[in-house]
């Protein structure tokens, strides 16, 4: 019941979480670490109690839209974090947040959370590995960008040397862009019923709207920048050179063209791999930093043994 209730609240947050936060509604989820399904305070005592054998290397997992940390759970009850603890000695930390907020706001909150974590963690942190699933990957990128432009730079940024993105729509999610066009078309029709439908369509949260073009800053959404590759020097939030980036994409179809368009059913391959599936020759990341998992749907990517094998290899 507890997990189902948390999932229901997470779905509500993803759908209208910006409104909930704006109106101070008690259903709005504040960004927090969680352990065993309960919020984990970012204090030395709480972290030490939750992780008595805390390692100097931590892996922090950030879920996607409308879900909780439970999305990471594999059929056998393990998850990417606990498996990395077993195989490589990482201490896993899980984040829960209001996925209806603008990605920029969640990025800011995540950066603040990492600041607090580095200050309160029971042992000196040597490395932070991030694993972001879907929107979670964009939140990580937004936080890293904020930390890189902050003066002075956040201490945690130097500790992040590897960032892994699982099914992250780096070039945006077409489904949201279709929703945007449909809402615009409905609004253009001078009929009270279609106007009502347009209002309902516009109820979707800022977080959902940001996914359309993977807007990581408030000003990007306002400007509606043309979609560009993360290696494009004009990109407002490129992948940071100080971090090794690893991308996992899912593909439901074995046909290259279909896979390119539909990808894992939510995120096209081109978006999840920053175009490397099509344009590998000019891709900025080493080829072995990008993996495509065939037969994996978007949701399955968060708890797939094949995905874990890639993460395990990259975390070695």
């Amino acid at each position, binding site marked *: 019941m507890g997990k189902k209730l948390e999932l229901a609240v997470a779905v509500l947050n993803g759908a*209208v979480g910006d409104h*909930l936060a704006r*109106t101070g*509604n*008690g*259903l709005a989820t504040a960004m927090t670490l969680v352990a065993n399904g309960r919020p984990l305070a970012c*204090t030395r005592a*709480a972290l030490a109690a939750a992780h008595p054998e805390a390692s100097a290397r931590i892996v922090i997992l950030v879920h996607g839209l409308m879900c909780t940390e439970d999305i990471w759970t594999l059929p056998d009850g393990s998850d990417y974090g606990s498996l990395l603890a077993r195989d490589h000695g990482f201490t896993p930390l899980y984040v829960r947040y209001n996925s209806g907020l603008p990605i920029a706001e969640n990025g800011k909150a995540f950066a603040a959370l990492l600041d607090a974590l580095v200050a309160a963690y029971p042992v000196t942190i040597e490395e932070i590995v991030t694993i972001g699933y879907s929107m979670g990957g964009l939140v990580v990128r937004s936080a890293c960008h904020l930390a890189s432009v902050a003066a002075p730079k956040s201490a945690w940024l130097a500790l992040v040397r590897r960032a892994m993105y699982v099914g992250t729509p780096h070039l945006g999610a077409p489904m949201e862009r279709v929703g945007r066009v449909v809402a615009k078309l409905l609004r253009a029709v001078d009929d*009270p019923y279609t106007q*009502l439908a347009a209002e309902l369509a516009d109820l979707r949260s800022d977080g959902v709207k940001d996914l359309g073009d993977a807007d990581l800053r408030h000003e990007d959404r306002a400007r509606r920048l043309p979609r560009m590759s993360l290696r494009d020097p004009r990109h407002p939030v490129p992948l940071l050179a100080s971090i090794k980036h690893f991308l996992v994409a899912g593909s439901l179809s074995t046909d290259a063209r279909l896979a390119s368009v539909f990808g894992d059913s939510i995120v096209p391959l081109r978006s999840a791999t920053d175009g490397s599936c099509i344009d590998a020759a000019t891709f900025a990341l080493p080829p072995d930093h990008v993996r495509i998992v065939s037969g994996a749907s978007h949701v399955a990517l968060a708890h797939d043994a094949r995905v874990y094998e890639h993460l395990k290899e990259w975390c070695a």
Partner: protein
Amino acid sequence: MSTRERLRGLRRLVEEAVEHGSKAVEDVHKATAARTFTVLEAIPPIAKPAKVVHTVHDLWLSGIYGAIRVGNKVVGKTLEVALDVSEDPGEREREREP
């Protein structure tokens, strides 16, 4: 966030949904009726009575939807009070503790 805070949040969200939802449906209702009344009001022999009926109709609709919103607020406030009354005095203090 505690269960009680979430219950308060749910109560408030439902109240907001009924408030905004009833207003949206009222607008659609009036706009749809206005199409017919606009045609009737353009016919000289029945224009004046049609305008009167239109006004009465809109007033009646406003009354009905307004009553729904008032009832919604009353139910909301009642639930809020019930939540306050059922709260253990020490509960709020305990919730504030980390």
